[in-house]
């Protein structure tokens, strides 16, 4: 088709444009990149350094100004050296540590510097922080799609049978319990709703990954890579609330 681009807009093409010399293209691509990554970066600061909301926002804005805009960090990203998010988050981590070091006499930040420098699981933290943001988007998108299409039944069965057991590490509700509360007509209906919900979730997950990062054929390997890193990660302590 005439208007269909030969290659979809991928993460790395966006990165290349964000590092390009053309000012207008660079600004547009940078803005798009930052929109995609800001929330994950903000959350990464919270998880890695235990920063409060205003502290995380302050240091992120400072990072964007100093490193991304002035020093043109994105232009230095190299596809052959690994994933862009790892590059970006590692840069943010290093930047934050340097800020801690420079501000050791400031009590509000000095408390966090030892945590940041000693953290042994930084790669897992980076990936976990990323996946956390990604999955939050996917779950919310699924809930919204179910509501918009009048399929609350799909959402409810999916939430009860899939999400809550993972979230609470508890046994899923029994069929009897589920059918009574959701007024399902038969076990086959329950199974069908569950299958439909899982397919919808898988589609939205692939869409979300395809939007920010990779060529379609690489989505499966991205999911496998993230799964491997996270499932083999040792348990580590994360802050549980964000002020």
């Amino acid at each position: 088709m005439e208007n269909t681009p030969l290659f979809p807009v991928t993460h790395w093409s966006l990165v290349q444009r964000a590092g390009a010399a053309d000012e207008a293209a660079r600004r547009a691509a940078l803005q798009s990149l930052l929109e995609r990554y800001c929330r994950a970066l903000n959350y990464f600061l919270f998880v890695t350094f235990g920063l409060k909301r205003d502290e995380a926002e302050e240091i992120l804005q400072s990072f964007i100004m100093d490193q991304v805009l002035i020093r043109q960090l994105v232009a230095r990203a190299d596809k052959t050296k690994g994933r862009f998010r790892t590059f970006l988050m590692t840069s943010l981590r290093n930047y934050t540590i340097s800020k801690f070091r420079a501000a050791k006499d400031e009590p509000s930040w000095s408390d966090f510097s030892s945590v940041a420098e000693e953290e042994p699981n930084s790669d897992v933290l980076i990936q976990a922080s990323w996946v956390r943001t990604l999955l939050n988007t996917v779950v919310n998108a699924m809930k919204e799609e179910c509501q918009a299409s009048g399929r609350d039944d799909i959402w409810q069965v999916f939430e009860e049978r899939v999400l809550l057991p993972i979230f609470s590490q508890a046994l899923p509700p029994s069929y009897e319990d589920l059918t009574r509360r959701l007024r399902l007509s038969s076990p086959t209906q329950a199974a069908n709703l569950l299958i439909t919900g899982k397919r919808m979730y898988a589609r939205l997950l692939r869409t979300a990954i395809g939007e920010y990062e990779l060529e379609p054929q690489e989505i499966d390997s991205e999911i496998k890579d993230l799964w491997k890193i996270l499932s083999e990660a040792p348990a580590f302590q994360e802050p549980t609330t964000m002020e």
Partner: protein
Amino acid sequence: MDSMITEKLSPNQLAQLLTLDEKTPWVESDTGQVLRCQLHAALLPDLEAVSETALAVPALRQKLAARRIPLDQSLFGHLISPAPVLEVLQLIKQFARLVRDDMTSPLRGGPATVIYYAAIAAARVGCGCRISQVPDDQLRERFAWAKCQKGAERLSGLFAAATAQLSTSTS
């Protein structure tokens, strides 16, 4: 920052959400209730809900309508009907075989197996037909097993009648 519903999940929990590969079986103690519920659910919508049996349903609607059998008849109602439609029983048997091994179905295992043998029994009793290659002595054992399963109480008469026919035909 807005609160995130995934905020407190561990890396391992996040990994589970990435694949959803972990099959979650329905609770075993449910099987009786599951079977009872399926037996009393309307027959056709559930046969239509399984893609492998769905294609045959439009033709069955016509057969049921021609026989003046209500289209919202329950699975149980058709199994114990004095004049069931053979093609419907064959489709019930196929449906049961499909869901018997389906991890996502609450009918998986025992409940589906009971329905499978109930369809065979109903074909014997209501249509005088065999829809299974299983030898009679084995069918007798399986009917005896099926009628003892939780949730199958109301099918015991059907299995008893079918067993009596097996006895007649093998004597």
